[in-house]
């Protein structure tokens, strides 16, 4: 165990004093849910997001990550989950940690205490939102939205890819045979939400 270095500003984004906050998601102004029958979509409640950069070949780093988040560093184009935490591979030296928003600060502090080598961790909670698509027709919406091949053989459960979505970009992962998740940047969440509503409309009749 080592101390959190003073040179890093670590801030709990949830104030401990005053009125408790009522957090709003990037899509709070929409219905946040829709669909019928073979296709449903909804915005996930506000999620904690930690952006983690580091060297996967560094054993001490990998072990500290596993001890902190309960799951090992995800391998290329995959994600791993442990209870309420997901760890997504984004690039050979970048991972995203999704967790309950009230755990983000504690997890960050834990990792900094366990490992003090060369790495970076930024709390980006609220910077992205999660849109979940479910049902047998969910895949049809993705086929219209991303250039990536979503065939079972090419996009199995447990895979995550960052790709083009409509005229913007998104991270897409497959949670189950008929369960998908789109991670949309906050400033593009409204665009992607309305795109999904439009793309989904023909499967709800």
């Amino acid at each position, binding site marked *: 165990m080592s101390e959190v270095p003073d040179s890093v500003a670590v801030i709990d984004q949830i104030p401990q004093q005053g009125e408790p906050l009522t957090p709003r998601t990037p899509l709070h102004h929409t219905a946040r849910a829709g669909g019928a029958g073979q296709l449903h979509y909804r915005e996930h409640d506000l999620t904690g997001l930690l952006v983690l950069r580091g060297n996967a070949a560094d054993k001490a780093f990998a072990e500290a990550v596993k001890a902190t988040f309960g799951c090992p560093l995800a391998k*290329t*184009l995959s994600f791993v989950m442990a209870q309420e935490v997901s760890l997504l591979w984004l*690039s*050979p030296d970048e991972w995203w940690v999704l967790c309950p928003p009230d755990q983000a600060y504690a997890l960050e502090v834990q990792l900094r205490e366990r490992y003090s080598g060369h790495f970076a961790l930024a709390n980006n909670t609220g910077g992205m939102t999660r849109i979940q698509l479910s049902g047998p027709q969910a895949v049809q919406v993705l086929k219209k939205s991303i*250039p*990536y091949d979503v065939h079972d053989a090419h996009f199995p459960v447990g895979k995550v890819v*960052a*790709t*083009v979505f409509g005229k913007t970009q998104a991270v897409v992962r497959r949670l189950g045979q008929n369960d998908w998740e789109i991670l949309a940047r906050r400033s593009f969440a409204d665009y992607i939400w309305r795109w999904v509503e439009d793309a989904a409309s023909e499967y709800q009749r």
Partner: protein
Amino acid sequence: MFHIYCPHCEEYREEEEFHPKGEAHLARPEDPDNCTDEEWGDYLFFRKNPRGVHHELWVHAAGCRKFFNVTRDTQSYRIYETYKIGEQPSKAITA
């Protein structure tokens, strides 16, 4: 449309996920303070524009956001290989 193999994602992706970033293997003059104006100008502004095999820098902009190199034929559009920054291509770099 190109189908480009990203050496970091380790699979083929659609061209629209990538951006070209110009000529690869540009060596910055070792001693910029003492090189000639011509050497510095060549480094900053002058690029090859071959018809045929060319080595280019690309970035996987919508994917892993990593840079890598592509050996491509500018006439036939055939991609011979992609390789990571710091590696050497198997097709020689011609002057």
